[in-house]
């Protein structure tokens, strides 16, 4: 026999094997021991810590965690590749429609609250801004720091998340559109778009004239977080877990986990654990605000 046959056969075998392997993949929702959880990058540090702590007690449950953005997570839930979608915004009406069309029933679980801090370079003399002023800046109505009392600092550099981010949507809803009062306002086109909370932090720390926004959990010494005067309010409130919890800090939103239908079995145990004292302890430790014990559970489709 010549040597060409085994080579050709090997090639054919390799192709057959590749096809067979590809055929094995697909929705894994039937195997309850594996939980795939992805979405919001804001919630990503939370999800990673939850996974670590839960796995230590329940090694038999295989949890895969990744980011990608709230929209990515919800898409994965609809296509059946994820069992839990993390989101830092509510599911959109059109996403609910698509889920229904695909036979998926998204159920919402509030797992934590997060404040969004408005940050500037530490050398910036400003200590507080009103929601209206922050909106003017991000909508491009005010382009010089002099317009918001910091004379001589020059042109404002806006640092925003990219539109794959739930924080981008939440900040637009809560601040740029003045809580939905002025829907015509949107981010100014000159705003720099960054792919993560960390990237915003880095850019603001590097740029003297920058203003940006990050989740509370990301705040550190490299930037200055501004106190914020709520819409129609008079007193500026500092961003902190306490002021988010009592509702005085105006820029805060819930973080959600979405599941397909009411969770059962291993998935239910995991979500109950997240909402329980251990999971919520991690929420607090990472600088987020715990959702109260009776965390809201309502079908996403009822809005």
């Amino acid at each position, binding site marked *: 026999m010549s040597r*060409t*046959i085994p080579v050709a056969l090997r090639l054919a075998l390799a192709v057959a094997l590749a096809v067979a392997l590809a055929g094995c993949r697909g929705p894994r929702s039937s195997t309850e021991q594996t939980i795939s959880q992805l979405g919001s990058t804001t919630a990503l540090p939370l999800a990673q810590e939850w996974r670590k702590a839960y796995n230590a007690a329940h090694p038999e449950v295989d949890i895969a965690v990744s980011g990608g953005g709230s929209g990515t997570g919800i898409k994965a839930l609809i296509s059946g590749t994820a069992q839990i979608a993390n989101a830092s915004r509510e599911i959109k009406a059109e*996403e609910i429609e698509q889920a229904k069309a695909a036979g998926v029933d998204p159920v919402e679980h509030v797992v934590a609250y997060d404040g969004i801090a408005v940050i500037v370079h530490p050398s910036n003399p400003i200590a507080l801004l009103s929601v209206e002023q922050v909106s003017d800046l991000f909508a491009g109505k005010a382009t010089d720091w002099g317009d918001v009392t910091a004379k001589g600092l020059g042109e404002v*550099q806006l640092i925003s998340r990219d539109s794959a981010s739930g924080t981008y949507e939440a900040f637009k809803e809560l601040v740029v559109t003045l809580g939905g009062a002025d829907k015509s306002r949107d981010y100014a086109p*000159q705003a720099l778009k960054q792919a993560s909370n960390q990237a915003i932090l880095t850019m603001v720390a*590097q740029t003297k004239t920058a203003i940006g926004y990050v989740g509370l959990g990301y705040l550190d010494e490299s930037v200055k977080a501004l106190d914020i005067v709520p819409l129609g309010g008079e007193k500026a409130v500092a961003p902190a877990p306490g002021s988010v919890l009592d509702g005085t800090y105006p820029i805060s939103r819930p973080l959600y986990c979405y599941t397909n239908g009411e969770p059962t079995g291993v998935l239910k145990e995991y979500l109950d654990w997240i909402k329980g004292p251990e999971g919520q302890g991690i929420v607090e430790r990472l600088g987020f605000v715990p959702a109260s014990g009776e965390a809201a559970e309502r079908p996403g489709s009822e809005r």
Partner: protein
Amino acid sequence: MKHKGHHAGEWLAERIVQVAGVLAIVFVVLIFVFLLREATPVLRAYSPWKMLTGRGWFPTAEPPEFGLLPLLLGSLYVTLGALGIAVPLGLACAIFIGEVAPKRLREWLKPAVELLAAVPSVVFGFVGLLLLGPWLAERLALPVGQFAALGSLLLAFMAIPTIVSVSEDALRAVPRTLRENSLALGATQWQTICRVVFPAARSGILAAVLLGLGRAIGETMTVLMVTGNAAVVPAGFSGFLRPVRTMTATIAAEMGETAYQTPHYHALFAIGLVLFLIAFAVNVIADLATRRAAGVGR
């Protein structure tokens, strides 16, 4: 028996290779058809001309705006800036390696330059984002360390290996007799390079430049990290020192968020279609140029 088995094996191997070759073409066609199909709804709803000349990219506003001009010009600025740096450097490098450097040095230099192509683009992005960007912004008194020219600079480093490698091959394909005749007629080495070797390798060098262009315009990760991604229409020379947003970065940044089958989703595929057509045109021209070069070499 032995004879027959040999033929059967050869036949099978030939078919497999043939199928692989045909599949490559089929895939390109399928990708084009897929892009066209996914982009069609938005091209119907908003006229293609209006999209290409629209100055506002606000895909999540109500109503959305899908103006591709800032993205198209953003890609153009970054890419042309990259070529402006990479072509002179790359050609000088190719001439040095191919014509001037002693043989031993050449054997070290070419693999070293080609090694540059092995650096992952995200590494270039990190260097630009954390070191080069802030440093340049301070030296040039720029307000912010993410701008078009920074992307150009990093892309230039990524395009240089392609340009050096392909144009050095083109220079080497020039017959030795041409050089010897030129030198025999009393021309200096420099005169020989600029007036004889370089013109003879022209088509191959054009192909090298176009392949470098293709490398630069399709690059995503680096530009996403360092150009700031602000969808503004760049203007004049100062546009190089301002943040821009390229087509590739737009697709990469927004595909994760768009809800499936919405106008925004289709608009991203329309950008993909534009990119595909540009890359296709560049490759066809590069291919024609290489063919001409091969003809000249013979």
